[in-house]
């Protein structure tokens, strides 16, 4: 900072005073510019203008390091915040503050978006290193980060800082990146996007279903923006970075929510998608990791009434489908709050006194754009039971006259034994699994409840229910089923594999529900399998795919592990299915519903059958 002092006398004194306080200020705010961080590329130290920044565990390095050391051409567009790294062989496009990157048109999630730090564009080094197949290590000797092409490792690196960059989880594109050859002459840079040549918008698929899902199949895009407009009601999505032509209009047949979907070119870079709606409604847009966007519309609640009889109480509603309902009990005054997830209230909000019965007051309102809240003010505790469908579009939410615990006990008493499956048409033709012995292992049990749900559901009960349904499906298909437990008993994780080994089972299917250390924050389905065992892996893949197809929860991953007891003690292909997160309130409500448990069992069964058919010969 340069301060020019002009004049004298009293002005001078005042300026001096200001200067004094500026000096004081600089003491109060210690600058951290002198903490020197080192960055090496191979053997060369990179001169850094500012210390390396680490954000949420990710080191950020200036983009121009790649220009100086890795033959990249770095194009930075300050107005759009686009950072393009053109390497011989691949092009990485990132944008300031945007948590995704395009690598040769393929989209990847970034843990940390690029940033502008003191005038310098910094990018997450781990991501770029992974994409380029570079090794990135901490070197205790140099006290710094070392980035280098794997071929040119010269410095001895200590054992615990040895290079180990493999395909990361964040890379959802399945393509195995070839190792870039250090000796290879630079090729022509690949231009990322040709608006004139590429048809980015491939397809608009109306999938329908209770959430009126629509899939926009996109080859590539850089971003999107949505607008919910009225008169007439419509949802507009502008897709940026989308080249090619618009597609013909998609019309739905008498769909309650979406009438038609149109696309049109808005400008050179932008494709506009318009959803013509039958009424204003909440929606969600999910970018798919493999590319493309899915749009889901809320459930529509069109009527609501309370039915009260002598010892029966139920809430009847008319809706496009039954939403997930989260219940909260409040006191003073005693209230039951029901949050209908992803639901739009199509009738006006109301708040009315109800008279003499148990329910004193009934309120309904649009609590948030995606949650419809129903509040029952009651004189005695009531607890919701699973929703029943009365007829097409009409649902009943029976209310148990008692506390949640009593309601759970009541539900448990109803589920005494596994009820036989209703005559549901099978997704796959009924197969012949005779000759197969399958070990079904419902996780936890007895004194070990497993994870405990937000509303108090025990994982062991969910696992057992799904496991028994699964066993039933497998026996119906002719397989011999060996259970590690068939009731609520404790069996150690070392006894379980022994049971399967003893029975010479051909497959081992462990059924679990998941939980996270940050309770309730994560959702989705994953399947673990014995690492380095191709049969287990392909079994896991088939089961995960079929299960996710059946229950439509978030598809997390399949994951090879060696350290789980059911993997390192069993001899046959083995998987552990984590159907959903029981500590997540939404998924817990699903997991404890018998209907969902059956669908989950069906999904796992479909996966096992698929694996069997694929590997029969």
């Amino acid at each position, binding site marked *: 900072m340069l301060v020019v002092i002009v004049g004298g006398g009293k002005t001078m004194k005042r300026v001096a005073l200001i200067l004094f306080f500026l000096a004081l200020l600089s003491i109060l705010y210690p600058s951290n510019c002198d903490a020197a961080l080192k960055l090496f590329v191979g053997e060369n130290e990179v001169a850094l203008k500012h210390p390396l920044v680490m*954000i949420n565990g990710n080191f950020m390095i200036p983009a121009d390091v790649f220009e100086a050391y890795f033959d990249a051409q770095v194009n930075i567009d300050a107005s759009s915040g686009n950072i393009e790294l053109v390497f011989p062989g691949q092009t990485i496009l990132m944008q300031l503050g945007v948590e995704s990157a395009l690598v040769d048109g393929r989209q990847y999630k970034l843990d940390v978006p690029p940033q502008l730090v003191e005038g310098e564009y910094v990018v997450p080094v781990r991501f770029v290193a992974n994409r380029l197949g570079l090794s990135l290590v901490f070197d205790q000797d140099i006290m710094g980060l070392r980035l280098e092409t794997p071929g040119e490792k010269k410095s001895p690196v200590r054992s615990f800082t040895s290079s180990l960059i493999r395909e990361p989880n964040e890379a959802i594109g399945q393509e195995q990146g070839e190792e870039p050859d250090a000796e290879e002459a630079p090729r022509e840079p690949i231009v990322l996007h040709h608006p004139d040549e590429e048809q980015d918008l491939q397809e608009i698929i109306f999938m329908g279903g209770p959430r009126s899902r629509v899939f926009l199949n996109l080859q590539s895009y850089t971003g999107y923006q949505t607008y919910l407009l009225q008169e007439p009601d419509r949802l507009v999505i502008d897709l940026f970075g989308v080249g090619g032509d618009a597609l013909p209009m998609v019309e739905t047949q008498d769909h309650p929510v979406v009438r038609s979907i149109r696309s049109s070119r808005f400008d050179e870079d932008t494709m506009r998608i318009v959803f013509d709606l039958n009424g204003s409604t909440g929606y969600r847009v999910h970018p798919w990791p493999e590319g493309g966007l899915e749009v889901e519309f809320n459930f529509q609640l069109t009527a609501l009434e309370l039915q009260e009889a002598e010892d029966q109480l139920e809430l009847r509603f008319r809706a496009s489908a039954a939403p997930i309902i989260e219940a909260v009990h409040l006191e003073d005054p005693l209230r039951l709050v029901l949050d209908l997830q992803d639901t739009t209230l199509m009738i006006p909000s109301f708040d009315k006194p109800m008279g003499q019965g148990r329910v004193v007051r009934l309120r309904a309102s649009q609590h948030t754009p995606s949650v419809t809240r129903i509040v029952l003010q009651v004189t005695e505790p009531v607890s919701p039971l699973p929703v029943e469908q009365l007829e097409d579009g009409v649902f009943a939410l029976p209310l148990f006259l008692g506390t949640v615990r009593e309601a759970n006990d009541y539900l448990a008493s109803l589920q005494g034994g596994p009820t036989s499956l209703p005559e549901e048409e099978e997704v796959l033709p009924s197969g012949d699994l005779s000759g197969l012995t399958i070990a079904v292992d419902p996780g936890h049990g007895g004194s070990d409840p497993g994870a405990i749900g937000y509303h108090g559901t025990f994982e062991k009960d969910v696992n057992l229910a799904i496991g028994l349904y699964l066993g039933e499906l497998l026996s119906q298909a002719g397989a011999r089923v060996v259970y590690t437990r068939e009731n609520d008993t404790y069996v150690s994780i070392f006894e379980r594999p022994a049971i399967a080994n003893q029975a010479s089972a051909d497959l081992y299917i462990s059924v679990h529900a*998941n939980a996270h250390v940050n309770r309730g924050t994560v959702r989705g389905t994953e399947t673990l399998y014995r690492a380095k065992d191709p049969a287990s892996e392909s079994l896991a893949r088939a089961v995960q795919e079929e299960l996710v197809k059946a229950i439509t929860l978030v598809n997390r991953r399949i994951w090879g592990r060696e350290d789980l007891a059911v993997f390192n003690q069993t001899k046959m292909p083995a998987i552990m299915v984590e159907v959903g997160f029981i500590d997540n309130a939404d998924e817990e409500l699903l997991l404890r519903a018998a209907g969902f448990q059956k669908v989950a069992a069906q999904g796992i069964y479909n996966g096992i059958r698929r694996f069997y058919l694929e590997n029969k010969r």
Partner: protein
Amino acid sequence: MRWRRGVTTAVVTLILLFVVRTVLYYSSDNGKLQTVTIDMTQPFFAVYFGSPDATTLLPEFHQGIGTIEERLTILLEGPRLDGLAQVVPEDTQLLGFSLVDDVLYLNFSHHLVTNHPGGSSGELITVYGIVNTVIGARGVMRVQILVDGRQVPTLVGHLDLSEPLEKDYELLGGSQI
């Protein structure tokens, strides 16, 4: 007169500065930090916490040589960086530890099990959050977790804890950093 006004201005400025600084401190999201700058000319070490989506462990770097005590103290206190998840359950205490050859025996209070939310994701994050954090301290190559002084077959019913565990790179997203 002017001079006195100057002094008043100065005092007011000082007070203002103080207030602004305090506000800045508290407004940084309950003391959670977004950015940490490490002086790598000095020794530093990593303590591992859960990623928000429960799929990986992410490092939080700290200045110092990272003795076993230092690492475990920070691990039990929980992450300072925003967006990282605590890996050990509430109330968990370290009752003691001993290094025998290259195996570090860590003795935790029963809360490690009784307060654990469960789930295979949760168990893997907890166990390897601990294991990956202490491996790297001088002499530690493997870790055996004990609960209330006893060897346990598993924490919450998935992982086999009957043998000492090694550092898991899979959970670090395949990377060292």
